[in-house]
């Protein structure tokens, strides 16, 4: 670690090797496989550039994870700003025709077709907490730490994310089931 902080790229490469899979997994979960390598790359470049600022070498893993999550959120934010207003009308309207969806969502492929557009509509922070908690299996506390927010905020953000997701998929079905789920899994 000390050599890496002293700008030894070979030493840093060992750190990259050790943490590459974990950061890539975070990136895939939050931004998706197509752009995960870009986010992974951004994460390690930022870590390399910021490493001299890291005071506590023992905190490297958590620090790197935060950079990774932040890089993924920033990536979503940046691309979202470019994309989301392609059609203001579309984006503010229901993403999915629920009556159509309810007839057809039974297979996994159809579920994907139904849920993925709804996920696209979530805010970067909402996507991040869903990915960390559900896709990567982080506890609420760990997700809160990775996002650098309080546990209470993480819970409420998770609630809001599920609520948004549910109402984007099917506005009529929005109910309180998500809160029970969060309590059960945190």
């Amino acid at each position, binding site marked *: 670690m000390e050599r890496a902080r002293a700008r030894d790229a070979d030493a840093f490469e060992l750190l990259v090797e050790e943490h590459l899979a974990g950061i890539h997994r975070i990136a895939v979960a939050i931004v998706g496989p197509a752009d995960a390598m870009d986010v*992974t790359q951004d994460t390690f470049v930022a870590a390399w550039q910021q490493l001299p600022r890291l005071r506590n070498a023992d905190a490297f893993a958590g620090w790197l994870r935060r950079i990774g999550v932040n890089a993924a959120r*920033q990536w979503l934010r940046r691309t979202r700003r470019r994309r989301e*207003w392609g059609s203001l009308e579309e984006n503010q*309207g229901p993403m999915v025709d629920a009556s159509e969806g309810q007839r057809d969502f039974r297979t996994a492929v159809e579920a994907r077709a139904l849920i993925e557009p709804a996920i696209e509509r979530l805010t970067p922070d909402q996507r991040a907490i869903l990915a960390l908690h559900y896709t990567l299996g982080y506890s609420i506390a760990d997700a809160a730490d990775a996002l650098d927010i309080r546990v209470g905020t993480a819970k409420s953000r998770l609630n809001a994310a599920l609520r948004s997701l549910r109402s984007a998929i099917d506005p009529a079905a929005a109910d309180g089931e998500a809160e029970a*789920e969060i309590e059960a899994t945190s």
Partner: protein
Amino acid sequence: MNDEQIIEYLRTRHRTHFDPPADALASVMSAIRDAPPRRSLFASVMPIAAAVSIGLVLLVVAIGVVPRIGLVPDASASPDPSVPPTEAVATPPVSPSPTASVRPAQSLVQPGDTATLAATDSHGEWGTIRLERGDELGGYPDAEIPADTFVIEVLVAYEADRMPDPAQFGTPDWTLRPRNAPPERFFVIEPQEFERANGIGLRPAMPLGVWPGAVDIFTTPAEGRIAFAVARRDADLELELVYRLGDEEQVFPLRTPGLPPEAVALATPQPTSPEDIAEAIAMAEALFADPDECANTLDGYSVAFPDAWYTNTAVGDTPACSWFTPEFFEVAASGEAPEGIWISIGLVDGVVGYTSITEIYVNDELVIDGRQAFRVEYNGNATANPDFRGYHYVIPLGENGPTLVAGTSTESADDYLLAKAVLDRMMERFTINR
């Protein structure tokens, strides 16, 4: 679809892609070794910025030459390097090497207090950083802040005399910490952004971000707000703002002990409902069932508009086909814009942009009649009037202008959603004859 099905989907989502590709390590290390040159993004911005700034215009969104839609061409060209505003780059903060010097004891304790730093890098001074203490806020009515905290805002404005090297700077250079606090109460807070409840925009308004960011809007100087969420229990501490670049830090007293501001409750957001939008679109579609068409031969465009609406003929200096509204109107002999105009189209000298004081909600590029154009929804002064919205289509007609602008706003249209939907359809049928 119930929650269980949604969560099950999330649990299995992308799992087959978790493993990095075989060349991932080599690719990351290559990026790391290439990192220093890549940080000089500003270099690629500068020619554009210079081109824009020489003899051209940044428009202040306020009141305007294009009647009723709030545009003013600013005739004064800026020789300063223009830098892009609020959007942060994807990478988290880097550690730039510029250092800054500051006069001692510049206090930022009172709202409105200012301080300046001479920003320097390895080549010397590259510009000025101006700080202005903002208000303390018990919260934002439209954005949730952490529980039991209050917010201190600081405006940070960078004015570059030349391109700094390396070029990235902004939010991560700033932190807040207690001054003279016992160890058990010491903390460091980084600036935060708070997503607005309606999902559009952030608090603080115009957050600083990391510069350079997007290059679609140029501002001079680069500026933005940083906001620190301070625990209310820490209101009895002295607080200081810390500017850190490399190993150097500059410190500014930011708060003396005292009661925090009263908490501000999050107001229930009232987003535009999908039903309202759908209704406006349906109305607009109906209005375009058999549209009329008019032409502005002076400025060189023609456009379709609702048969049931009215437009103007040429009067005085005002060319025909400039104003559109559902109610009949008469144009004064002076050519002054009458009341009640919903949509205006006009030609503006120079290049159009939006200053960094503006909140941008929509900003996308599109093609109108074969020309690159962009569409913006904005609020020129969200602090004074958070509900205001302006909606513009901007079509540059040359590198140095002129620019065609078509727009509406919540102040000009009685039914803003309908006006937007109608404008969208007008622009789909817009023809440029120049």
